[in-house]
């Protein structure tokens, strides 16, 4: 099924000329990649990074500037990715020594510092020059996003079934115990953080290559962090397919809601996020998985009650 889905995604541009559909597909893939990149550290490793937008922004900015200065996008995108991963190393090495709330608020502070500074240094909107605009096509952007989403998802899948992934899971459940059974927690966290920020940077790079014009500061907006969190939690935090499922639902909802209820859709997303954290911590993937179990329980309960009533009837002649 996964193969058929992948084939359909690859073939999509050949069948539809409508750029609306491709745009739609592009956004789903971009948000899948962004959310999955958060999930690698936040879901599998349990480290809540509230500054994810910083790495998305670094990737977007570096890729965009290099690309607009004449570098091929196939060189600019890896450069942007590397810049974000390097930032992950620089920020993660001291940052990951902080535990619990200190890591979360520390990353939030880093992202705000970068956002304000970028806004001050580059206050002007970045637009594509006319020649680039004339050559603009959605299909290459789509394939780039598809390749990236595939890469991140495959990484997550490999991670979930590797020694590294099990180490992260152990650390997420109990850091002291993980350390005691031989997981070098700091090194695990740092590696996961670098991978996570690198992929966030790549997603940012694809965004920088895709978007016609945006304020550089916008790529550092906390909304990128929040969207990544919301999508991950919608789909299922710490699962391989959660971010994809979450991204589809998120974009469908956004499309429907934003058309009719411009401001209200943010309110609905906020409430939805809170509801999931409180009531459905596993997200859709977990709910889907537990469906057979629930059905079995229901059946068992029903048959028990039938058997009970039969027994009772037998006893009372």
């Amino acid at each position, binding site marked *: 099924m996964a193969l058929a889905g992948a084939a359909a995604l690859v073939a999509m541009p050949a069948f539809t000329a409508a750029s609306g559909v491709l745009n739609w597909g592009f956004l789903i893939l971009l948000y899948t990649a962004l959310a999955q990149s958060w999930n690698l550290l936040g879901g599998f490793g349990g480290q*809540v990074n509230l500054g994810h937008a910083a790495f998305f922004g670094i990737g977007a900015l570096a890729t965009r500037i290099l690309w607009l200065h004449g570098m091929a996008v196939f060189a600019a995108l890896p450069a942007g990715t590397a810049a974000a991963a390097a930032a992950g190393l620089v920020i993660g090495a001291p940052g990951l020594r902080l535990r619990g*709330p*200190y890591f979360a608020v*520390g990353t939030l502070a880093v992202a*705000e510092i970068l956002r304000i*500074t970028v806004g*001050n240094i580059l206050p002007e909107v970045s637009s594509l020059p006319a020649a680039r605009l004339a050559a603009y096509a959605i299909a290459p952007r789509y394939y780039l996003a598809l390749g990236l989403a595939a890469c991140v998802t495959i990484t997550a899948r490999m991670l979930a079934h590797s020694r590294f992934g099990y180490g992260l899971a152990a650390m997420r459940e109990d850091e002291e115990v993980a350390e005691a059974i031989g997981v070098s927690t700091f090194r695990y966290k740092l590696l996961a953080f670098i991978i996570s920020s690198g992929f966030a940077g790549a997603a940012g790079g694809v965004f920088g290559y895709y978007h016609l014009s945006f304020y550089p500061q916008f790529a550092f907006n906390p909304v990128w962090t929040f969207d990544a969190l919301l999508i991950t939690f919608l789909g299922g935090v710490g699962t391989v397919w959660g971010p994809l499922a979450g991204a589809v639902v998120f974009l469908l909802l956004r499309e429907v809601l934003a058309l009719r209820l411009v401001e209200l859709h943010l309110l609905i*997303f906020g409430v939805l996020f809170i509801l999931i954290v409180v009531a459905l911590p596993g997200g859709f993937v977990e709910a889907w998985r537990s469906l057979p179990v629930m059905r079995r329980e229901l059946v068992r309960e029903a048959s028990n009650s039938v058997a009970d009533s039969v027994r009772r009837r037998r006893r009372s002649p």
Partner: protein
Amino acid sequence: MILLQNAIFGLLIGGLYGLGAVGLSLVFGVLRMLNVSHGELIMLGGYASFWLFTLWRVDPFLSMLVAGPALFLIGGLLYRILFRHFIHFPEDQKIKNSILIGSGLALVLQTLAILAWGADERAVTPVYAGRVIPLGPVVIPLSRMGALLVAFLVLGGLHLFLTRTRRGTAIRATSQDEMAAALMGIPVNTVFFTAFALGSALAGVAGALLSVSDAISPAIGLSWTLKALIVIVLGGMGNIFGTFVAGLFLGVAESVSGFLFGNVYREVVGLVVFLLVLSLRPQGLFARS
């Protein structure tokens, strides 16, 4: 001389930073939850003061007495509906969940404020808004001086409440050891509720005082949450006096550096100090002494 004047402005706004932070510190100290929507509660306090002034010309220093109780109720409600569900989780889980819920709540409150009142910046302008006290070569704005004094009084009152009353002692006991407190017959669930609502009420008071000197808009929440976090990290956990001094310090640091490096960087300086303190003391100044 301009530098001195800037330092004085910073000192005056710093009292509000301390007041804005102390509620967050109380909630974290007692419940071990980090409510990252604290800044949005401050924003709501600011709007309470703005509307009381705009509709009925109520002085912001009086509105404080409405904003506080109103936010006490809102905070209590938020606790009952949202935060109570994981109060008995292990500490790691509790902190993580509260951060997640808080960031969702921040978005909800901010959007609600935009829907209800629009995204414009609002200001409260009582008659004494522009008045200053000349003091040698520098001037002291009257309303900010008043806000600093009130902040000091509120923090002093909180200190007395926590140390001299039965209820305050129960709160401190619960923050030190929940289990022991429960065994001594302290109703810890009530204490959690009270601490959260009281922390929110302090945010409301801070917001009302803030409206005298600063603009209010739905978007101010995040920067006030960050300021509160900076102040807590600088001042140390559960230390009201330390929080007040750290607030003053942050105020001065921001306004002096704003003067030296340009006003657009004033917030960056506070955040950099914050990161430095965090990384030089990885256990955080949060650590209870």
